[in-house]
């Protein structure tokens, strides 16, 4: 949301009276929905006053972008995650820097995190054009086509109110910036391991995983991978979506590892998805009935995130790896199992963006995401703004990446091996 505010560029197209009317209707819908559905308005926030201040801006807006900016300003006053206005054409909101070439869902096969203020490659997909071009983990991305990355990161960073979400939002912005239609190319400039500038022209490929549509939410691609290393199970997926595929494959991964010494779930970069899936996956690791990950509190009711144990539960040690890209459902899952004493958490602190939300379509065609509840983890801690603090905090460094190491994951595997020895 704040990213959108920061990058919003005014569109000059004049609006018809009908479009203006739809924008006002949309503003009123957003304002009323939050008034009626927010579980507890932040102390000191005068919502009527916010409407009185910002509605005139929508009434006099000369573009859809201006109207949207006023709506984003309104929901920004809540200072909470999971409130967003998404334009019909996503590239519209991100301004010229994102608009020039961006037209597809493909990518060059890189994953990125922000380390010491720079966009650093943390993984390169096997067989991807990025790998074929020789890009390596630890390289710093300096430029994507005409866009200088570091100044862009500073610009976005300056308007992020909640520091805990900074890593998540900045890395997502860089990944979004590198999206192209499959088959087209992107010019990327890097600093390599020896801090030498390297320029690569890399082809974008179709995004990994199957396309999934969920209501009015923009289409996403979902993938899942699992492995068994040294008699330790490992699973990773990019979002808690596509339950038929994900839950089935996760179940297969656990059941094919019944005798494993432990299991590692890698939630780094996983921004969440369908909250109830956290309960479904936790059911593979919790054998006692009536255990819960936490409680979702709406205005008029509470929903306990109860775990329903599977008929065959995996009982050996469980490690979960997280980072600043771990958000929402991923945080609900990790903190819940940590609080229940079932999992040990490795990595860096998570985003603290864990409010359950829904996604609707506004009269003007934009998408409207709004949180409907607060979420309190089983240990009594609200996750919003606080996130998950790992049991073993290991922050990723460029040096480790360049040396071919993944310290958090290695620590998780080492811990399970230690448990095996002491058994």
């Amino acid at each position: 949301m704040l990213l959108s505010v920061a990058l919003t560029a005014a569109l000059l197209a004049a609006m018809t009276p009908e479009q203006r009317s739809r924008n006002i209707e949309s503003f009123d819908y957003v304002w009323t929905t939050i008034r009626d559905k927010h579980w507890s308005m932040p102390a000191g926030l005068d919502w009527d006053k916010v409407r009185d201040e910002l509605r005139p801006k929508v009434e006099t807006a000369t573009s859809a972008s201006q109207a949207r900016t006023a709506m984003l300003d309104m929901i920004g006053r809540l200072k909470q995650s999971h409130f967003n206005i998404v334009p019909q054409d996503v590239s519209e909101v991100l301004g010229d820097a994102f608009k020039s070439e961006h037209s597809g869902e493909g990518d060059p096969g890189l994953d990125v995190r922000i380390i010491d203020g720079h966009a650093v490659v943390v993984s390169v997909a096997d067989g991807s054009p990025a790998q074929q071009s020789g890009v390596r983990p630890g390289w710093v991305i300096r430029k994507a086509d005409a866009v200088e990355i570091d100044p862009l990161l500073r610009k976005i960073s300056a308007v992020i109110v909640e520091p805990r979400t900074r890593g998540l939002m900045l890395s997502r912005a860089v990944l979004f910036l590198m999206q192209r239609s499959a088959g087209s190319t992107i010019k990327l400039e890097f600093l390599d391991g020896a801090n030498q500038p390297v320029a690569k022209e890399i082809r974008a490929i179709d995004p990994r995983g199957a396309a999934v549509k969920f209501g009015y939410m923009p289409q996403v691609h979902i993938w899942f991978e699992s492995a068994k290393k040294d008699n330790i199970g490992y699973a990773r997926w990019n979002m808690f979506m596509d339950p038929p595929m994900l839950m089935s494959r996760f179940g297969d991964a656990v059941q094919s590892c019944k005798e494993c010494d432990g299991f590692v779930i890698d939630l780094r970069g996983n921004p969440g998805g369908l909250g109830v899936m956290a309960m479904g996956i936790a059911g593979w690791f919790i054998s006692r009935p009536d255990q819960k990950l936490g409680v979702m509190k709406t205005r008029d009711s509470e929903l306990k995130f109860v775990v329903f144990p599977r008929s065959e539960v995996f009982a050996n040690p469980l490690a979960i790896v997280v980072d600043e890209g771990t958000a929402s459902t991923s945080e609900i899952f990790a903190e819940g199992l940590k609080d229940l004493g079932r999992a040990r958490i490795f990595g860096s602190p998570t985003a603290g963006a864990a409010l359950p939300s829904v996604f609707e379509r506004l009269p003007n065609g934009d998408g409207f995401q709004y949180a409907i509840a607060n979420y309190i983890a089983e240990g009594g801690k609200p996750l919003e703004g606080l996130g998950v603090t790992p049991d073993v905090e290991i922050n990723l460094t460029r040096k480790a990446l360049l040396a071919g190491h993944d310290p958090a994951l290695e620590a998780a595997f080492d811990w399970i091996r230690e448990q095996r020895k002491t058994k």
Partner: protein
Amino acid sequence: MRRFLLVLAGVACAGFLHAADEPLPKAETLLDGYVDATGGRAAYEKRKSEIMSGTIEFAATGMKGTVASYSDVSNNNYTVVELEGIGKIESGVYNGQPWESSSLQGTRLREGAEKADAIRDSTFNGPLYWRKLYSKAETVGVEDVNGEAAYKVVLTPNEGKQQTIFLGKKSGLMIKRVATISNPMGEIPMEMGMANYKDFGGVRMPASMTQKVMGQEFSISVQDLKTNTEIPKDRFEPPAEVKKLMAAK
């Protein structure tokens, strides 16, 4: 014409005044009246099985899917909801044991108050048996439901929480139900609206239903409802994972 209308208006006003002073009808009169309004005891008793298919939609969020349910006089039932982007959510009652299985949350047996609710709701031709299903029924007032005056009846089950139903004063049909869903996840308030009653095999049933739960609303439209079609016995058998839980109980 104008005078005619005014006369009618006077009659209507007189009717309202009379209604205000009128004692509320007994709940048993209303509940038996509901059976009559929907086709009568004999029509219900001819029904031995039911297969329903329809659509489900969360209008605000754009989620859509299908729903199908099977039930018969054995009081076994099976319901499957398939939602785009979510997958299958199955539930049922099999030999007195309610269960649920979904791609989201896995598999579980329903117990306690939730079990009692599920068994009560799965009673085939339920309206005929309200005296067995509820220990107490009381008419507590008249309320407007979407512009229609309705008697408000509070039902107290033998086990579980009270629920309130609203029966149209003129039609005698149930047009709203307010209840609390008892679930391990919590006590969740639920409101359901019923409309568009149609004759399905001699009994009138709502072809349109809307349900509000935790601020979200979805609607179900019945596309087809067949009665007295043979249902294979294995249709009610739960998935293997549910059977494992039943066996381990």
